[in-house]
């Protein structure tokens, strides 16, 4: 191939702006990093190091680790608090709606508000978030709307429309599968991004049993990709306690095998979640690669609205975790800092409730099924045979409409 031909080909490339790799990103000299030197294999024992455990606020709302207390402005602390309250209010309202027949099956997140808001707090707009399905709080923080979430869980595909300016993946119902996609986004960022964006993905304790999650951690480790893995260990995968999901005592320990750092965090302590995630996000942003966080929390409510936890867990356990409520704990902290009093707590609750009600009204205004568009997002351009099927489908709809079904 002559030099001209090579040159011509690179000239052709930029004229197609949709192409994933811009010519400016094709490095002049290919980067090829030699593998790290192989470690001495004669070492008699293998030292695997230690995994820190972070709690800043204990269950009584007292500072148990002053050295890590973040220095957040009062307004920020109250914004975080409000987000947690809003999360709980949405959850509670949706459960009522579901019980009254106005909502499909959904996965309540009660008890995980600190894990949710704490993990999402350090992310900026340019970052990416790849959530599991139990992530209302974090999704609201990112800019998903209340009515959107309600539409989604009530079986309207419109709810999956990603809000403008939000770099998020639609949440994943298939356990663990999104963790691979998230890793790929991070690998893409590493290759293309000029503003050091990072990816954060969350998944459950059950999800950690999926092969794809192991593969993803390994890919991220080998690629040194800018991603934070948050395992929300809420104690259960439907009926299965985490003790039956793993032979080890801690999920965070798995990071050792992949050669990436990890931390176990009190997931009901929003300050610890913020500090741990901020640290992990910074590492990723600086090019230091992935981090695994195990957020230890508890699913205080149902797996989904189709679930009956009484079959598989006892009330004592639930009662115990009620005393570790992430919201109550943070309230005490804020009260001790004179940032909150009972009147403010009530006011916040009322405001959030009102916000949810307004969201519900918008949801009701939009809750009209639109069966005509089910073909429209399948392909960039519908192949002719699918055009035929679409025509057939639409004429069936028209006929039904005429017959008044």
């Amino acid at each position, binding site marked *: 191939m002559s030099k001209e031909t090579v040159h011509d080909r690179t000239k052709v490339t930029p004229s197609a702006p949709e192409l994933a790799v811009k010519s400016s990103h094709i490095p002049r000299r290919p980067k090829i990093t030699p593998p790290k030197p192989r470690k001495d294999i004669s070492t008699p024992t293998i030292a695997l190091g230690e995994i820190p455990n972070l709690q800043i606020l204990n269950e009584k709302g007292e500072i148990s680790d002053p050295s890590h207390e973040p220095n957040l402005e009062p307004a920020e602390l109250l914004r975080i608090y409000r987000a947690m309250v809003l999360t709980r209010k949405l959850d509670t309202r949706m459960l009522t709606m579901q019980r009254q027949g106005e909502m499909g099956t959904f996965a309540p997140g009660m008890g995980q508000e600190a894990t949710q808001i704490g993990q999402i707090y350090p992310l900026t707009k340019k970052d990416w978030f790849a959530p599991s399905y139990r992530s209302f709080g974090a999704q609201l923080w990112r800019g998903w709307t209340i009515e959107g979430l309600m539409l989604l869980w009530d079986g309207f595909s419109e709810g999956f429309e990603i809000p403008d300016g939000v770099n998020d993946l639609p949440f994943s119902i298939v356990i663990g599968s999104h963790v691979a996609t998230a890793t790929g986004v991070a690998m893409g960022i590493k290759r293309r991004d000029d503003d050091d964006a990072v990816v954060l993905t969350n998944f459950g304790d059950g999800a950690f049993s999926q092969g794809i999650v192991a593969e993803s951690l390994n890919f991220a480790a080998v690629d040194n990709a800018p991603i934070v893995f948050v395992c929300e260990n809420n104690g259960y995968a*439907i009926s*299965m306690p985490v003790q039956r999901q793993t032979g080890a005592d801690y999920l965070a320990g798995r990071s050792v095998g992949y050669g990436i750092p990890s931390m176990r965090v009190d997931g009901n302590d929003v300050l610890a979640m913020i500090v741990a995630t901020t640290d992990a996000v910074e590492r990723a942003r600086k090019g230091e690669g992935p981090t695994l966080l195990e957020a230890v929390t508890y699913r205080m409510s149902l797996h989904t609205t189709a679930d009956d936890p009484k079959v598989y867990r006892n009330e004592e356990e639930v009662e115990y975790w009620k005393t570790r409520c992430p919201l109550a704990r943070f309230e005490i902290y804020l009260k001790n800092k004179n940032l909150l009093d009972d009147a403010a707590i009530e006011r916040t609750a009322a405001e959030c409730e009102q916000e949810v009600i307004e969201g519900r009204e918008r949801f009701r205004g939009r809750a009209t099924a639109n*069966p005509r568009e089910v073909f429209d997002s399948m392909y960039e351009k519908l192949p002719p045979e699918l055009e035929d099927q679409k025509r057939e489908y639409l004429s069936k709809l028209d006929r039904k409409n005429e017959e008044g079904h």
Partner: protein
Amino acid sequence: MPQLTMAESLNLALDQSMAADDAVCVIGEDIGVNGGVFRITKGLLEKYGEDRVIDTPLAENGIIGAAVGMAIYGLKPVAEIQFSGFMMQAFDQIEQNMARMRNRSRGRYPVPMVLRTPYGGGIRAVEHHSESREAYWAHTPGLKVVIPSGPRNARSLLHAAINDPDPVIFYEPKAVYRAFREDVPDEPESLEIGKAQVVREGSDITLIAYGAMMRPTLEAAEDLVDLHQVNAEVIDLLSISPMDTQTLVDSVSKTGRCVIVHEGPRTCGVAAEIIARLNEHAFEHLEAPIKRITGYDIHFPFFQVEQHYLPDPDTIVEAVQQTLAYE
């Protein structure tokens, strides 16, 4: 005879199989204490203990791989995949080991296991919970694929599947689990895998369906008599692979016309295979092109609009009329 739902009759089949043969064990997610998310394995843990009712970590590929190994070792595992949408996680072990081990080991290691899983739409479920991808498994050499349509044949087919020396994919129409009751005798019954059943005799046209689509198809057959004086023969396929070509050919040779109904996507679906076989074996008897009423080649829609995706009696009746009008 007790009147059971399909959920109950499947539970009965598992219970009786486990009581009769201690090689039979069940393995899956949430099947022990919780009794399965659809309660099909309810009560089995209490009766048979954790060595035979194996609650696994959340990993479908692991479940099927482990079941294959246990089957090689002489057990008869009945694996549950919580929703057929999550069989995709296990595609690896299904295709690479479950379907191939007998042949790869030149007959030394048969895999007498069953993979049970709920499939199909119509229960207002979230994404990935309504698929009908039976064609994937029918396309996989080495597997058998069966789909019951009611409480009684579900129980008999499950017995047959558990006792079959080869791996069987057992698709359970979840919309039928609690839809109606049927007399199910106390004594175990078995159905031959690979046999279809003529469930309604008729002379004008043959309707072929299976699983959850049997109900709209039978309803259409009633409407055809009542409204159009058309007498349809209805066949419940029951076994997708192997397929009972003879029963289909006999019926279509008699009626000369045929409509096939399934909820899975159209392209390369089960209907396509049936049409090919009828073309090969009953061509000279055909008086009209065979029609298929199927799901579309799109992802199963969100539940607010799912009823429009699923085949319904009116659409079937219309297809029959078009077929009959063909000259």
